[in-house]
């Protein structure tokens, strides 16, 4: 059985089909939630925001022109909502400086133990990146967005997407190095 495409669902939603809305929601809400949660870092706020995202889809489905994938459109709406929420409640965004401050491994037995598990430490460093860097890494690696799609979601030129990704990875390497893991790059 072939699943109904996202574009067909949007067309049905534009016609007022609630069931199509439920299908689209079921298909995408978890990823949109995780994308938003990485911004606002508050589960309750993230839940409220994804409800707003899909309500916007319900209202604006007839304006969707199909120039990009539906998932790209959803993430662009979600990003706008998340940033607006952060402007209203800036305390929800962690201080990047504090978040990036990886403790001296020599002073922390837990971190010393983590060094033995490189992937665990890598995940810790990923959470310590700035919001811009976290966002682009998530979009490329987890949401599987192309250069063009990231450019559309974030609203930056394609070359800037590549440059930002490079610097996000460079910062990640520096955080790992500070935590005692030398990768030989950058």
């Amino acid at each position, binding site marked *: *059985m072939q699943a109904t495409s996202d*574009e*067909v669902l949007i*067309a049905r939603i*534009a*016609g*007022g089909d*609630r*069931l199509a*809305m*439920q*299908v689209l*929601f079921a298909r995408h*809400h*978890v990823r949109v*939630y*995780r994308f938003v*949660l*990485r911004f606002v870092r508050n*589960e309750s706020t*993230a*839940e409220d925001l*994804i*409800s707003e995202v*899909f*309500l916007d889809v*319900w*209202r604006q489905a*007839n304006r*969707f*022109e*199909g*120039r990009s994938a539906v998932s790209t459109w959803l993430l662009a709406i979600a990003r706008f909502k998340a940033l607006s929420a952060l402007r209203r409640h800036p305390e929800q965004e962690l201080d990047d400086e504090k978040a990036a401050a990886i403790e001296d491994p020599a002073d922390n037995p837990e971190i010393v133990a983590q060094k033995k598990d*490189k*992937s665990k430490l*890598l*995940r810790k460093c*990923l*959470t310590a990146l700035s919001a811009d860097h976290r966002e682009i*890494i*998530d979009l*490329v*690696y*987890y949401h*599987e*967005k*192309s*250069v063009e*799609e990231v450019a559309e979601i974030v609203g930056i030129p394609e070359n800037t997407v*590549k*440059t930002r*990704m*490079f610097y996000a*990875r*460079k910062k*990640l390497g520096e955080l790992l190095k500070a935590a005692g893991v030398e*990768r*030989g*790059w*950058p």
Partner: protein
Amino acid sequence: MNTLRNEAPEHQDVEALLPWHAAGTLSRGDTARVEEALARDPELARRYELVREELGATIHLNETLGAPSTRVMEKLMAAIDAEGARRRTPVSLTLAARIAEFIAGLSPRTLAYSATAAALAIVLQAGLIAGVFIKERSGQGYETASYGQSAAQQGSFAIVRFAVLASAADITKFLEDNKVSIVDGPKPGGLYRIRIATSALPKDELAGIVGRMQQDKVIGFIAPAE
């Protein structure tokens, strides 16, 4: 990117594409270019392994973020209901235009055959499902009107649209395997109301059962119903 290795610009460009190559989102041309560079440059290949580690860690990190509660869907549908009946707006999508173009390109004979086959399939399926429905009801024996009415209102329900190609045998097997029964339909859109359980299940449990049923090839669409 002045911290990239001091190499030709095209090499730097290839290195910048490694994250998208690992995620599988490059065009065919760029993919070939990156694979060729990886095959002849061991240092680039080593760095590509770092990218793959980052990819795995990012996926793992996101997957541990959990999922939103079911209240989100409820809140959304309540908000949609609150908006009231919507005006049916004509859809002016590129996709719609493409479909229209495709249909317009078919010969009248092909269109006629397709329409007839589709109509027959729908009528046939409706008839078969009605047969299943009647057979089920006829096996219930004597019941008072008041009993039948109240029993039909009790339990946990879902609305379902069966896959167009599902046969009567498939549907019967699905109903038997899942111990569910059709209580109403067909409604507009080929929808049927089915009883999932004779008691009112918690919403989470009902959603879980409906989610599992959605995986069945017999099901075109299914959603919990009041």
